[in-house]
């Protein structure tokens, strides 16, 4: 098997534990290295949380998660029907401000960028958002 997909037609933040389990199990089934699996789970978690918070404004919405093995790389495609939101344009947080000014938030995108090798976004012709994450030499 080279690809595993799951569609969540009306997902909410409460479904995140199930989503993390799905990503963990699927990445393992596709042959990803254990270290890679953990990093991917964290990256996807942050991306999907962003969809719920920024896209669906904490309401339910559809999310599709597709994991695919491409040679030795692992690619994850996230698509949703929320208004356009491109997390790749979020500026990296300043991790060295005075402690009291350090943003407690804003870490999600930083974690995504830290755990994957490639992160790209596009708005699809049908109006969906698509976020693609690639981890190289993951298998």
């Amino acid at each position: 098997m080279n690809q595993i997909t799951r569609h969540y037609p009306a997902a909410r933040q409460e479904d995140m534990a199930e989503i993390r389990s799905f990503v963990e199990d699927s990445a393992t089934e596709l042959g990803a290295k254990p270290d890679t699996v953990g990093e991917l789970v964290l990256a996807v978690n942050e991306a999907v949380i962003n969809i719920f918070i920024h896209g669906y404004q904490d309401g339910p919405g559809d999310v599709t998660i597709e994991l695919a093995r491409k040679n030795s790389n692992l690619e994850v495609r996230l698509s949703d029907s929320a208004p356009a939101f491109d997390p790749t344009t979020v500026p990296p947080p300043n991790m060295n401000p005075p402690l009291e000014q350090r943003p407690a938030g804003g870490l999600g995108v930083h974690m995504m960028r830290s755990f994957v090798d490639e992160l790209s976004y596009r708005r699809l012709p049908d109006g969906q958002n698509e976020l693609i994450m690639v981890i190289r030499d993951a298998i």
Partner: protein
Amino acid sequence: MEIVVTQEEGRVPVTVFQLKGDLANEEPLRSQATEAYEAGTRNLILDLSDVPYITSSGLRAIHYLFDLLRSDSPEESDQAVRKGIASGQYKSPHLKLVKPSKNAAKALSISGYDMFLEVHKNKKEALASF
């Protein structure tokens, strides 16, 4: 996520939060911490040995605990803490972490939280550090 709260007596009284499950939300950790603080807790061990993942929301909860526990320590003013972190001398004397999983440790490291929070191998070692 489940939180088991116990009290330990080292050189100082220490409250232990043993977390079970992913630390993926700010609640219930924030509420539990606030309740403990109002009941007198000033030193806290966060036992992460049963926490597979820490997300950015979980990190926010830890940040809240860190700020809460230093809030009435005049020697830990923002300026003093800032200087201490910059020089690598400062670690929170009030909040200690125990045995994060590999994935939890990655989240702590990526976020820079391990710069100001001690990480111990076990609860005994953490307790002795107060």
